[in-house]
């Protein structure tokens, strides 16, 4: 029953999307919002219903649904039955459509009586995107396909996907990707307005971009957390095509977000913003295409089906051809002749923008380069880490230096004497922090030095900016906790998060130590200053797996026991898969990370032990960035509501 209803409501969603698209053409513009109300609400409700029907089928393990049969099993815990809905191609497309409808509804809420032509054009574009994905899911990836007679049990679920971080990673990521669809539609709508600049389109675009960017940041972070805990390779970023597919829209989103601030303040960079908004979404869809079509190989390949690839690619071509064609003809109307000085806030934003776009281009090139090689030969190759490290890092270094200085500079004309004094203070703070770090850490390395300087530079500038703001309050005798708190705005908080993130990245990639060794029970080994003793190994039974669990006692240099780490080696009998569960001891200075590999009682087990310094600061950093994003979102929504 539920699957049939879900399928039916999916068709209903298509009807609502078509209604929204067609009614936008109406000559009588005043009646459009009424139709759009029906369409937007109808679309949201029907997709919502459809999505929850699939979720219900997964929860009750209705194995007559092919999707449930292929991806679930009656022994699977409830949380993973729910997350299993989007752990496969068809379900994840349905989630994508659900998020699209939610964004569509949010755009609909922008109607305020004065902007109806603009919003209706944006909704038309949004409807077109939604139709594209609905036709795709209904024709090529139906999640409600039945299998009669049904099987008594399902095929199971990839065990490395059974993880809480991965359960929320796709929804966050999709909210990010799809959030950029709003920026795309609003950008198209702005260009289609006939020389009407009175609509503050950038003001409408900003909250969507902030939300998309914030969710994308969180989504990527959860993906990294998952890779770190679950893959057991001791790292958190592998320059895998799928990771790059998320990183590219993130880089453009970062550029877009900052350019929007400039447009808001100075009305310049409008043409640039329109282009970034288009490209951010196109790259999101191309990212999906790269993952779904199987033309790039990666650790998380979804479905290998060229027919699906052709459809998504044709759709991207249509969207890209139309939007970039419109851009080629219309964007000149948005040129602004006000040039601004390099040494100002908008100057620093523009420089950073260009650097972000260059990074994005080199990531794109690196990701697709193996494809170009494959045109001429039939071989898959990997250009991997060295390429990305040597192209991305050198561009990121100036970008981070400029990023540090940006908040200190003011808009337009800069009082250079005052600014110089502020920058001087930041430089002193940076030097002090760096000296402190190395006197404590005592492990010198040139790249480490660069990383630590950049991290302290960002944090020092944030502190200086914060100090100046609060000092102004106290000079004006308006210092109170409320006014003080006001200075912790989205920008300050996010930048602080980036500073901490760089600290974590530097620590864990420069000073990582690893020890791979074969150990028998009661053997011991040394990593950094820790002595690790393999005490025992036990058999365990989990809800849908069996495991071997090793007990490793960790002693510090004073021979005092710190912790017992218990990595596992799991076997899932249903799918006959194995996975290794990492065991980690974390504190603010380092992670101790143990993986139990292959082996047996006679030969011993391969044990991989990593000493990963400062990793936790990466997660703290991202958390703070996301909080910053949410703060910015809140204040921008307030502005938008007041504007309405």
């Amino acid at each position: 029953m539920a699957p049939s209803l879900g399928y039916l409501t999916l068709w209903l969603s298509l009807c609502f999307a078509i209604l929204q698209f067609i009614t936008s053409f109406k000559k009588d513009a005043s009646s459009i919002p009424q139709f759009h109300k029906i369409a937007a609400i109808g679309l949201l409700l029907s997709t919502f219903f459809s999505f929850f029907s699939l979720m219900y089928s997964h929860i009750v393990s209705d194995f007559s649904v092919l999707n449930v049969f292929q991806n679930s099993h009656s022994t699977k815990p409830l949380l993973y039955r729910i997350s299993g809905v989007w752990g496969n191609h068809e379900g994840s497309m349905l989630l994508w459509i659900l998020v699209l409808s939610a964004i569509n509804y949010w755009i609909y809420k922008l109607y305020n009586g004065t902007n109806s032509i603009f919003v209706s054009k944006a909704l038309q574009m949004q409807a077109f995107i939604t139709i594209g994905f609905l036709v795709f899911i209904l024709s090529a990836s139906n999640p409600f396909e039945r299998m009669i007679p049904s099987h008594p049990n399902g095929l199971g679920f990839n065990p490395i996907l059974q993880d809480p971080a991965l359960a929320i990673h796709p929804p966050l990521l999709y909210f990010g990707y799809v959030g950029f669809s709003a920026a795309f539609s609003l950008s198209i709508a702005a260009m289609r307005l006939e020389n009407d600049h009175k609509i503050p389109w950038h003001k409408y675009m900003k909250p969507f971009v902030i939300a998309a960017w914030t969710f994308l940041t969180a989504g990527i972070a959860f993906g990294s957390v998952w890779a770190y805990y679950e893959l057991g390779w001791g790292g958190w970023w592998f320059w895998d095509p799928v990771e790059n597919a998320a990183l590219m829209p993130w880089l453009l989103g970062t550029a877009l977000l900052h350019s929007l601030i400039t447009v808001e303040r100075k009305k310049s960079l409008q043409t640039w913003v329109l282009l970034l908004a288009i490209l951010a979404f196109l790259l999101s869809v191309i990212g999906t295409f790269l993952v779904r079509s199987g033309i790039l190989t990666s650790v998380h390949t979804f479905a290998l089906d060229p027919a699906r690839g052709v459809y998504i690619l044709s759709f991207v071509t249509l969207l890209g051809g139309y939007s970039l064609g419109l851009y080629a003809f219309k964007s000149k109307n948005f040129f602004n002749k006000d040039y601004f000085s390099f040494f100002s806030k908008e100057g620093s934003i523009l420089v950073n923008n260009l650097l972000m776009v260059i990074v994005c281009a080199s990531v794109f090139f690196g990701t697709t380069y193996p494809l170009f090689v494959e045109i001429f030969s039939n071989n898959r190759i990997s250009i991997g880490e060295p390429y990305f490290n040597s192209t991305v890092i050198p561009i990121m270094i100036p970008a981070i230096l400029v990023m540090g200085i940006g908040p200190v500079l003011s808009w337009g004309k800069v009082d250079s004497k005052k600014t110089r004094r502020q920058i001087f203070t930041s430089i002193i703070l940076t030097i002090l922090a760096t000296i402190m770090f190395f006197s404590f850490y005592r492990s010198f390395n040139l790249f480490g030095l660069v990383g630590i300087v950049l991290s302290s530079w960002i944090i020092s500038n944030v502190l200086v900016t914060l100090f100046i703001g609060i000092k102004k309050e106290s000079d004006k005798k308006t210092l109170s906790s409320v006014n003080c708190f006001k200075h912790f705005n989205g920008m300050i908080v996010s930048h602080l998060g980036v500073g901490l993130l760089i600290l974590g990245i530097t620590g864990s990639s420069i000073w990582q130590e690893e020890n791979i060794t074969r150990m028998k029970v009661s053997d011991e080994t040394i990593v950094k200053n820790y002595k690790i003793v393999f005490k025992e190994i036990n058999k365990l039974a989990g809800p849908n797996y069996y495991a071997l669990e090793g007990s490793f006692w960790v002693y510090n240099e004073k021979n005092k026991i710190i912790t017992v780490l218990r990595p596992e080696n799991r076997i899932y009998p249903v799918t006959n898969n194995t996975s290794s569960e990492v065991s980690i001891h974390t504190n603010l200075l380092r992670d101790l990370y143990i993986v139990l590999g292959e082996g047996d009682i006679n030969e011993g087990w391969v044990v991989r032990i990593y000493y990963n310094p400062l990793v936790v600061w990466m997660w703290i950093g991202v958390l703070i960035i996301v909080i910053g994003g949410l703060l910015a979102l809140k204040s921008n929504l307030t502005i938008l509501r007041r504007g309405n």
Partner: protein
Amino acid sequence: MRKYFLSAPLIIFFCMMIVFYYFLIIKRDPSELPSVLINQKAPMFETTTLFDNKPFVFEEESGQQVLVVNFFATWCIPCREEHPYISKLSKEKNIAVIGVNYKDDSRKAIQWLNELGNPYSKVVVDSNGRIGLDWGVYGLPETFIVNENNIILHKQVGPITNEKYDDFIMHIENSIK
């Protein structure tokens, strides 16, 4: 002038899409990229060995027997996939395989080989990619067959996996004749 500039994104986009279409539509036939180095003398190099850090001169190894030169790295995922076949090759064919550890962290490479097994008769270091540049390596893994006259007879781009293995063995046997 400006107007043309604004159409640039559209043009670049279409070029990209054509490439993607090409991939989806073509039947990927196994025609290999002819290397300019085929039937040429193998580029000489001097470097150090990975495990004991001793000097290594390629001329001293080559020119007496057929050699297989395999470029690999720990960061390269296809290399991991290829590794068992390289082991099989060196065991079954009793042939000298020289591993060139390309743009890699030597410490990690040593641990990688300890973990997976070391199929190479010698492993040498190419930390800055200089040797790879001379040999025309454009991605990992790549494997060369060099005959006893020091001529490169065959080049395999991408991993030697199950499908490619027999073909590669055939090339080696042809080189020995």
